[in-house]
């Protein structure tokens, strides 16, 4: 036990986070607007899960020439096929939109044919490919999934609102939800802007970002509530102090959580990359917004918290009210 205590964050921090609140809220708002813009104008590169179509994962003996494969597929009549490397260098992911005469939902044999077709076209002499995975999804499923995703989001938002409003205070609930949604929006905006294929695992990632982000905010708010009850100070001062007190916890938690997701990104393989990426960005954003945005929102306009909001309601008040 002779190891010196290690501290990433000095324990007597006293940053004045409230002083920069307009700047931090402004930056968050700008990012959110930019995200909305990216989603509106560039839209998501929806993966098969949502659009319907056929995807074939091929493994080659040696790393193939992606452009050559694309050309061969085009020559074979699959002009709109998307070809990308996946996982290791010798794996290729080919996505096709259903063709008029094949690959459609009703034709039971079509997707088999498509996979065989792609395999035949993609293989070249001396570098044969094998089909690792092929998937065919009807467009109807896609629509339903998107709708389900939306329902999940609504359910979670409403659930959070109610829970926090009951356990804390409605102002905290609104602030936490707004900040969390902004975080999720910005991560989503990143995926729209970057054009990374948006699939179901990324949707799951986004929802877990939501859970993570709200979690961070609740820890800070929990401390705010505690301090409001125990300290005699101005709200601004209490908020500042609460953030400072929980700063080391917030950063360390995020750091370790980031590490675990990073391991997922490094070793999880291609199909978990998107999910890990969304969580990595989400963790960073969630941490930053917990520190710089969530509490400052509580000093603005109708969200301004006062000591009265958080003091336990005196019991005799209720008794008094009952008297004639």
């Amino acid at each position, binding site marked *: *036990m002779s*190891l010196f*205590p290690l501290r*990433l964050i000095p324990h007597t921090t006293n940053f004045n986070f409230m002083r920069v609140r307009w700047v931090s809220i402004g930056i968050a708002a700008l990012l959110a607007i930019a995200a909305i813009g990216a989603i509106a104008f560039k839209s998501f590169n929806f993966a098969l899960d949502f659009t319907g179509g056929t995807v074939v994962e091929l493994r080659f003996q040696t790393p193939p020439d992606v452009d050559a494969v694309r050309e061969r597929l085009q020559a074979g009549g699959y002009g709109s096929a998307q070809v990308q490397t996946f996982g290791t260098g010798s794996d290729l992911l080919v996505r096709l939109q259903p063709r*008029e005469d094949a690959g*459609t939902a*009703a*034709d*039971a*044999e079509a997707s*088999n044919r498509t996979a065989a077709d792609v395999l035949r076209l993609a293989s070249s002499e001396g570098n044969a490919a*094998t*089909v*690792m*995975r*092929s*998937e*065919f*999804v*009807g467009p*109807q*499923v896609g629509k339903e*999934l998107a709708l*389900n995703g939306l*329902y*999940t989001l609504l*359910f*979670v938002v409403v*659930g*959070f609102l109610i*829970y*926090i409003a009951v356990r804390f205070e409605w102002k905290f609930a609104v602030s936490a939800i707004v900040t969390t949604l902004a975080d999720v929006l910005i991560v989503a905006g990143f995926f729209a802007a970057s054009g990374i294929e948006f699939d179901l*695992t990324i949707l*799951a990632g986004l929802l*877990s970002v*939501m*859970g993570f982000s709200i*979690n*961070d905010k*609740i*820890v800070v708010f*929990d*401390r705010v509530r505690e301090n409001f009850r125990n300290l005699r100070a101005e709200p601004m001062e209490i908020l500042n102090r609460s953030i400072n*007190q929980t700063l080391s916890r917030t950063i*360390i*938690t995020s*750091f*370790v*959580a980031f*590490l*675990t997701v990073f*391991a*997922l990104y*490094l*070793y*999880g*393989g291609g199909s*978990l990359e998107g999910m*890990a990426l969304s*969580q990595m960005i989400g963790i960073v954003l969630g941490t930053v917004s917990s520190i710089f945005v969530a509490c400052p929102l509580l000093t603005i306009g109708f969200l301004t918290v006062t000591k009265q909001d958080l003091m336990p309601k005196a019991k005799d008040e209720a008794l008094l009210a009952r008297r004639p």
Partner: protein
Amino acid sequence: MLEFPRWKYVLILIVVLASALYALPNLYPQDPSVQITANRGFAIDAALRGRVDAALKDAGVQAKEVDTEAASMLVRLPSLDAQTTANDALRKALGDDYLVALSLASTVPDWLGTTGARPMVQGLDLQGGVHFVLQVDQKAALDKRVDGYLEDTRVTLRDKRIRYTSVERRPNNSIVVTLADGEDVAAAQQALAQTLSSRGNNAGTLATGSGLTYQATGQQITIGLPQAELEQIASEAIEQNLTTLRNRINEIGVAEPIIQRQGDDRVVVQLPGVQDTAEAKRLIGATATLEFRAVVEGNAADAVASGRIPPEAKVYQLRDNAGPVLLNKRVLASGDEMVNARVGVDNNGLPAVDVTLNNIAGQRMFDYTSANVGKLMSVVYIERVPTVTMVDGKEVRSVRVREEALSPTRIAGVFGKNFQTTGLEKTEADNLAKLLRAGSLAAPMDFIEERVVGPSLGKENVERGTKAVVFSFIFALAFFLVYYRMFGLITCIALLLNLVMVVAVMSLFGATMTLPGFAGLALTIGMSVDANVLINERIREELRAGVPPQAAIATGYDKASGTIFDSNMTALLAGVALYAFGTGPLKGFAVTMVIGILTSVFTAVTVSRGIATLIYGGRRKIKSIAI
């Protein structure tokens, strides 16, 4: 001041032991194997063992072990490739006498198995196989049933010699009967109620027609199908399809298939270990059925040419373009009234299909044949081929129905429930018997989703997932050990126990592990980390405030518990929502996340506190703690 009740230690000990026990089976790898079960009339015996050994030797496959049990034989193989080769070889060698299926055999020792411990179920993405989602066409099921009522109505009226001018189907699925004489209304209604409600089928589960309503106005009787009846028809169509699918999948021999109803009109089929989708799809998707119909006398070719087709007849084309044939509109028996069908030989030694009907259809057949010995009867083979055409740039889905009559056979004598269909070729008879035996689909189904995962990719996914989780752990543990020292060690123990608990709970409840499930596990570590950091930071804070070590530990745990509860409740909410609305991969992720959150609260709050108390508790004064 730093105390921990004894019963909690007992609880922790029990939980730790139980978790270890139930997580243990996951350490045993599964053997790729081939399972052989005997069809009726064949036994699992030494002779079979000899045939299996010979077949394996011919194929050049070395089996790891061959287990013989009462009902089946299990051939364990060293690799997936050997499994495929052995499967092909055995299927060929054993033919129709035995059912050969791919399976993954557990290597969990018997003593462990007796405690109820078993490994986690692996999702398709982890073990390879095919996944289909099928949509059931409920309208077709409804049409079929209403048409059945329609035809029964006509027949009943004719049998009872009640004259009618028309029997029509209305768009709202009701049937309107117009009688020739208004005085017959009461008698007709009684007769209809009697026959329609007794219309049954083989499974005995379909609607009995008892919910039908009869309304008489003047010379008309309106037979209505109440909404409940319509819904029941749709629901039963799915149930019958599920049963049929199960039968058909048993035919191709897949160990542990998953056949589930999803939502109102979908069926999910997962066949682990199957790679060749063509065979599976052909059997699953085949919407062929049979109908037995009487041949209407007269020259069919002439009737078609002149356009004068008898009112009770319908023109069918004979198989192989052998010309038209006139068949009665009334169905004597249909595929769903069939009880059994098997390949046999007729009197001339030619292939035939022996058919057994259920009682009602058998009675109908008896009634008909006793009055019509020497006349002709034909089997109509109906196949549905879904097609998609482009109209004005839009996809229009339609179904092409192909109906063929097999060449008519003469009714040699009176027969009832059992009879023979002759005039088939060997392969034709085989296929027919197989299809009939598997039952027919109550409603056609379309493939709307299909996924094939190669076995090597599945194996790779497991390796990747495990590696990712292991590294997640190593990263987190290393950090904690360095950063919190003694309490880091406590946290590490809590984290490890948490992982074991999640695995144990998932194994115990048979939850399915998927690739995103591994991500859920990694995230669980993140969540668990949060709780532990909250506690440790709180203790540090108390120490800084000058609180004595033991009091600091107690206060730290107390104060952090509330926060942990609040922050985990919200995460739990997100997990539950994800499970409720998600499908497939999302569900797998949600399950691990929810279980992980629950166990992490327990390990962080209770277990780690117990350990901390063990180390720092007691009466002695402690000057400093390593945190």
